[in-house]
């Protein structure tokens, strides 16, 4: 299990783990060091890593990944309601159910590729979303969302101790994970590191190689006698399970689940994160998730007053129009910023932040080494 990684991979893994675990200290200067935000970054990091295993390696663009996130959340909350507030069974439930879902949806959707695959996954996600809102209300509690109540049986917990007054919290053998404290963050951080490790393993394995071969030329793979379908299905299921784990962790840090997690805009969000960070790179998706969640947090708290404060030094005649223009992009308008940045990235830097860093790096290196060109892998379309 631990073979097959080069020294660089281990260094990357060590650096990544150190960064994630030290986030409460490292992010202090930029004001992002509170657990609610950091655990969100970790959860969406997991979601994006999983999405990247499918989209980055095989090139199949799924527009319905949020369905797995939702299913994972629901499964976890049901485990809290029926069995115990311990998160281990909840996460296992989330994984099992999303895997089943992913096998079913993947088996059908992967019969087509390209845009048809996108539409099929989108159709399945919309079906899940619509059903969760309407007929499945007994399971999902409709618009209100699935919540814990005092009347829940919690059979396993009830065997060991009397239910206390008030709603119980999700715990990991006594460590409180849903209280908004560091417990929840470290749970998500460790999950993120484990997920990252597995994604490195997949990227470096023959299996990952196969997926990349499918991306670059599926027809040729078939001609050489490989049946590509099982590989694609495996990638789809793995990435669905990642999404389910992310959904389970969402429930573990905040035990409620709502159907809006499954809406296709939520699927769009994970696509944005992956693209922004860098498709097909190892750390890119996590960077994308972190950047989007961080700036979402910062930008949405900005208001006109903050802007007036920042640009107060300018003469009024410049300041007024500037502030009213910039106020388009902050506060409520955060999505606009996201849309603009996303367009710019797709147009000018399809490789995302990682590609940008690589270009800067190669430019710096060229200056030192005297013009040695570094080949940059071009992303290939799924045929």
């Amino acid at each position, binding site marked *: 299990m631990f073979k097959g990684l080069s020294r660089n991979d281990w260094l990357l893994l060590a650096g990544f783990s150190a960064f994630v675990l030290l986030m409460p200290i490292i992010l202090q200067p930029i004001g992002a060091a509170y657990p609610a935000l950091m655990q969100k970054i970790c959860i969406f990091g997991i979601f994006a890593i999983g999405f990247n295993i499918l989209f980055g390696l095989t090139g199949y663009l799924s527009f319905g990944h949020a369905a797995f996130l939702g299913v994972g959340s629901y499964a976890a909350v049901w485990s809290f309601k029926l069995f115990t507030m311990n998160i281990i069974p909840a996460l296992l439930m989330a994984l099992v159910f999303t895997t089943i879902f992913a096998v079913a949806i993947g088996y059908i959707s992967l019969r087509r590729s390209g845009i048809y695959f996108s539409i099929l996954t989108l159709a399945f996600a919309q079906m899940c979303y619509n059903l969760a809102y309407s007929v499945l209300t007994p399971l999902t509690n409709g618009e209100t969302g699935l919540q814990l109540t005092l009347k829940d049986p919690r059979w396993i917990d009830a065997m060991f101790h009397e239910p206390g007054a008030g709603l119980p919290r999700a715990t990991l053998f006594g460590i409180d994970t849903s209280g908004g404290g560091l417990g929840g963050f470290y749970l998500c951080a460790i999950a993120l590191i484990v997920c990252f490790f597995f994604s490195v393993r997949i990227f470096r394995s023959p299996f990952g190689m196969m997926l990349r071969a499918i991306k670059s030329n599926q027809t040729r793979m078939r001609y050489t006698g490989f049946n590509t379908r099982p590989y694609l299905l495996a990638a789809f299921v793995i990435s669905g399970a990642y999404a389910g784990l992310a959904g389970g962790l969402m429930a573990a840090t905040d035990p409620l689940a709502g159907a809006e997690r499954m809406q296709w805009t939520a699927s769009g969000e994970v696509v944005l994160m992956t693209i922004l960070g860098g498709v097909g790179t190892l750390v890119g998706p996590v960077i994308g998730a972190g950047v989007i969640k961080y700036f979402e947090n910062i930008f949405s708290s900005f208001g006109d007053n903050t802007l007036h404060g920042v640009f107060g030094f300018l003469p009024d005649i410049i300041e007024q129009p500037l502030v009213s223009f910039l106020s388009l992009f902050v506060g409520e308008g955060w999505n*606009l910023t996201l849309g603009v940045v996303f367009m710019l990235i*797709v147009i000018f830097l399809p490789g995302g932040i990682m590609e940008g860093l690589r270009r800067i790096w190669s430019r710096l290196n060229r200056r030192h080494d005297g013009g040695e060109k570094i080949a940059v892998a071009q992303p290939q379309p799924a045929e």
Partner: protein
Amino acid sequence: MDAILLQILNGLDKGGAYALIALGLTLVFGTLGVVNFAHGALFMLGAFCAVTFNKLLNLESVVIDPTQTTAWGSPLEVRTPYVEALLGDFGNYLHDYSVPASIVLAIPVMLIFGIAMERGLIRYFYKRPHAEQILVTFGLAIVIQEVIKHFFGANPIPQPAPSAFGGTAYVGQILGMGQTLAYPWWRIIYLLFSLGVIGAVFVFLQFTTYGMVVRAGMHDRQTVGFLGINIERRFTVVFGIAAVVAGLAGVMYTPILPPDYHMGMEFLVLSFVVVVVGGMGSLGGAVAAGFLLGILQSFASMNEVKAIIPGIDQIIIYLVAVVILLTLPRGLMGRRGVMED
């Protein structure tokens, strides 16, 4: 019988909207080969042309009449919309018909917007993979949506249908089939309107020289180019026309569904399903699938059907799409060789 007819009518007007949006999507895909995820935003933009037009008509001049006072003792403010002051009775009339009249505003706005969008952004994506086209137009859709939200707010803005068409049409009476079949006038108007627009697009493509060249370009762009025709420019115009069609669909839909900034996204997802069911690149397929899925959806929302299969009304369109995609690789009427894989 009446119930079935009513459902068909119900499906037809919704299907009209799907068909119009899907027609534009297919037109763009067939000519430029671009998958445009911002098409729903164009639909929404058209709807907001109607809102803007209505707002323009409602601009008022306020004159304080010193001789009269209100019940609270303050001077009476007399508000007269400029249109009424300038145009008199005709202004009143215009006010009533603000939704259909805003077509006058919507056509140039959408045409210019569409052409600007094609020249400014889409043309750089002809050669890029479909995934990137989807992504960049998805980003554009978010941008358009958020700008509209900034200026018009997040709440739906109801638009009145002209009072002459505001009521109910007793369709049963007209057709001589019994009294009970009644249907809102405006939805009938919408159906006729969408048929008219679809007809106009077909006439344009089928019976004009310009349209003939466009069709030739859809089949074999290179050869048309060799003949010395600037096919790029024609395709740009086609993109503009597709934008206008989506915009008009939005304008006329406002009395049925009060427009808000994300209405386009909801329609986009459905219209994509419609396009795929109809067959990528097939205009007739898009129109047929639009009406078909509209009718299917309204049948699925009948109580009798819902009693048998609960929740079917929510998923029927997607379910049909899944079945069609898996059994007919080209959709209902797709051309051989166009995006079959």
